[in-house]
């Protein structure tokens, strides 16, 4: 027998067109399914592998800082293996700690003793000529504290000094304390003046130097004299200002009165301008007879103290890459809960009308068509719509409320379509028996349709939750802030303010971190970490509604 003959039976395999098609289709179907699976797996693997390291890094298992902190600047110290990453708050905490330690060490060291002695001798040498202020500067925050006290008490001093009948005992202070206290007050004023007008810094110093002895031994008679001199000094300032401006050049047009309205050189104009003006003023205001050498010597003796205070902690700083995303998590939760609440209420009501009350006809099919089209509208359009209607027209500003309604409108088609489906899947028998028992239509819906449709409605809403949580475009203009330091429940003046505040949100945060700031490895970390948390959140919310749905299903099975 030839092999050909062998094959001659009725069931012999033949390569027909259908067979070829069949095999090709099978390969195609399987290939495409696997391709989709592969892409999905890659997407999830990408987010999980890159993102989980951000969430699960650190000493403990979970990086709590990332979940509970505000976004901050990341300070990176060192390189490679020894690299330390610190968020701003931790960086400054560390720095302060180091300063304190260094200061403490310095105070204990013999260097401190000699520096201190050196300072004291210089001060005592200058004492007749120069203000005690040098000592105050040297002795940490003494001046600041005392100035505060003096400001509070000045009214009393003045009154007391003016009125011969009152005695110091009336104010429960020792008479001998009064002059020094008033002195401190005056010094406080000088400081303030200097702060406001750093242009005339040197003038203040000069004034203080000339009047120091009188201030020190302040008596009612002296008080008048010093005050007069002080007022004269204040009156001279505009003149000095104009002089310095003249020295600077003709371009400066800001008058003194305008200048004092502003809050310092930075406001005064361009910073560089202010600097030039300052140095010009310094030259003009310095009297020729005034000797700066003593001051310089004093300052030199302060150097060891200054050095002790200075700690260098060299770091590379990356905005938005440190801290955590707590406000964004909270914001997204709030947005989703509110939007879904609104969407479910609106959607279920619409669906009830469509499924139970609406009579089949042109109107109903038009409404359905409109809803279907709504589902196809790109989310950015919803964003613009929400911006136009809620933010601008209703004047809600960028707020939770505006975001809620915008997101709610976006997920509404999903909710309506699915709720209608759920309502229609309730057996007609329930409706009929309810009506036959004497229920009105609404009672019928309320007691024997809606409760049984709820599992279905919830199932569909899960889709809406993921969409509402994930969309960036609708909240970009209506509810999201790139950065906000207050949490939504902080700093409310009235409880209604809660609804009219913007919030941070996870998808918008991802957008900001990945598109709005300079990119580097640390922002990428942040981005994937946020995406990972987002994924967890959506999975969490979805499982919650699935659990709820299953419970309801168990309760209402038929």
């Amino acid at each position, binding site marked *: 027998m030839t092999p050909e003959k062998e094959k001659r039976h009725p069931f012999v395999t033949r390569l027909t067109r259908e067979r070829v098609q069949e095999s090709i289709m099978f390969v195609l179907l399987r290939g495409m399914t696997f391709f989709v699976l592969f892409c999905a797996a890659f997407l999830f693997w990408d987010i999980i592998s890159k993102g989980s390291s951000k969430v699960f890094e650190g000493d403990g298992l979970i990086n709590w800082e990332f979940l509970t902190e505000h976004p901050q600047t990341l300070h990176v110290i060192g390189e490679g293996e020894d690299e330390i990453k610190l968020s701003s708050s931790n960086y400054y905490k560390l720095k302060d700690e180091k300063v304190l330690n260094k200061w403490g060490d310095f105070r204990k060291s013999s260097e401190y003793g000699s520096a201190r002695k050196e300072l004291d001798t210089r001060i005592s040498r200058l004492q007749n000529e120069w203000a005690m202020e040098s000592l105050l500067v040297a002795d940490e925050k003494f001046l600041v504290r005392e100035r505060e006290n003096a400001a509070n008490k000045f009214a009393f001093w003045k009154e007391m000094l003016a009125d011969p009948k009152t005695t110091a005992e009336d104010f429960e202070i020792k008479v001998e304390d009064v002059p020094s206290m008033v002195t401190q007050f005056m010094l406080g004023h000088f400081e303030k003046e200097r702060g406001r007008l750093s242009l005339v810094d040197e003038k203040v110093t000069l004034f203080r130097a000339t009047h120091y002895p009188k201030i020190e031994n302040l008596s009612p008679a002296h008080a008048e004299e010093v005050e007069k001199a002080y007022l004269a000094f204040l009156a001279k300032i505009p003149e000095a200002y104009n002089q310095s401006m003249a020295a600077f050049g003709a371009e400066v047009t800001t008058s003194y009165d305008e200048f004092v309205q502003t809050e310092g050189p930075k406001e005064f104009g361009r910073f560089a301008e202010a600097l030039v003006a300052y140095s010009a003023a310094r030259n003009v205001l310095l009297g020729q007879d005034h000797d700066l050498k003593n001051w310089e010597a004093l300052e030199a003796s302060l150097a060891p103290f200054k050095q002790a205070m200075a700690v260098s902690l060299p770091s590379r700083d990356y905005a938005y890459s440190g801290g955590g995303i707590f406000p964004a998590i909270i914001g997204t939760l709030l947005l989703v809960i509110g939007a879904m609440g609104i969407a479910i209420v609106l959607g279920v009501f619409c669906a009830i009308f469509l499924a139970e009350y609406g009579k089949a006809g042109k109107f109903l099919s038009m409404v359905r068509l409109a809803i279907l089209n709504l589902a196809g509208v790109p989310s950015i359009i919803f964003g613009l719509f929400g911006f136009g209607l809620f933010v601008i027209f209703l004047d809600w500003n960028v707020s939770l409320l505006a975001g809620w309604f915008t997101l709610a409108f976006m997920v509404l088609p999903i909710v309506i379509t699915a709720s209608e489906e759920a309502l229609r899947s309730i057996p007609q*028998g329930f409706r*009929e*028996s*309810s*009506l036959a*028992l*004497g229920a009105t239509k609404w009672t019928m819906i309320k007691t024997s349709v809606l409760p049984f449709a709820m599992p279905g409605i919830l199932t569909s809403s899960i889709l809406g939750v993921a969409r509402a949580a994930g969309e960036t475009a609708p909240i970009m203009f209506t509810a999201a802030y790139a950065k906000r330091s207050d949490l939504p429940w902080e700093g409310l003046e009235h409880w209604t303010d809660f609804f009219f505040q913007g919030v941070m949100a996870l998808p918008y945060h991802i957008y900001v971190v990945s598109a709005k700031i300079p990119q580097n490895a640390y922002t990428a970390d942040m981005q994937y970490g946020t995406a990972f948390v987002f994924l967890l959140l959506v999975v969490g919310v979805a499982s919650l509604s699935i659990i709820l749905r299953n419970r309801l299903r168990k*309760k*209402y099975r038929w």
Partner: protein
Amino acid sequence: MQEAITTSPERSPSTDEVDPIDPAIRIRDLDFLYGSNQVIHNVSLDIFPKEVMAFIGPSGCGKSTLLRCLNRMNDLVDGARIGKGSIEIHGVDVHDKSVDVIELRKKVGMVFQKSNPFPKSIYQNVAYGLQIQGVKSKRVVDQKVEESLRKAALWEEVKDRLNENAYGLSGGQQQRLCIARTLAVEPEIILMDEPCSALDPVATGRVEELILELKHEYTIVVVTHNMQQAGRISDRTAFFYLGKLIECDRTKKIFLNPSKQQTEDYISGKFG
């Protein structure tokens, strides 16, 4: 078939009165249409208090439609309407503007072909009618639930599991639960649309017994495809064909000696 067919009823066994009495339901010259499709043609029929009336006829002849007209369940159907004629219950036209359909349905209860208890507990099912009427007192509701379940011959079987889901009951028990649910709102007339068609013979037997029991208190209209059943439970039988009432008479007469050829053909199984 234009004249009304109103044979005097066989009185319920408990009484021997012979005087004609007011019918509980009086249907006169009724035409009924679904849109433009007329499915009931000029039907006139009286149903007397405390009798069991059976509707028989081939599928699609309009039995259910007529039954659902009686408590205006057809209001739910888009485009369903009365062409002409009237239905009076205790002398009141049910389609009159002054009639509140909710009150009508409380007086005219209905049991459906497919037993459809709510997916709630047995207790809640029976109490449903009372609760939607706003009866709050637990004592009253408890009492009524027990009474209804007893009347529906279900009490003994379910008294220990009142709080279990009604879908844990057997098909026959579910149908009796539906009857109990209907009884709880104290109707006078009970309409049953093929109440036993989804039940096995034993369960059917139980429901039939129940119907015979209930007819002492209620007027019952029952649609059935089961000739033996009609024979067993009904006092009178109405035979419909293509939306027309062919014949209505005492059940015995319809089955033993029908006056119309069509009736005889149907009963003897020649068509339908």
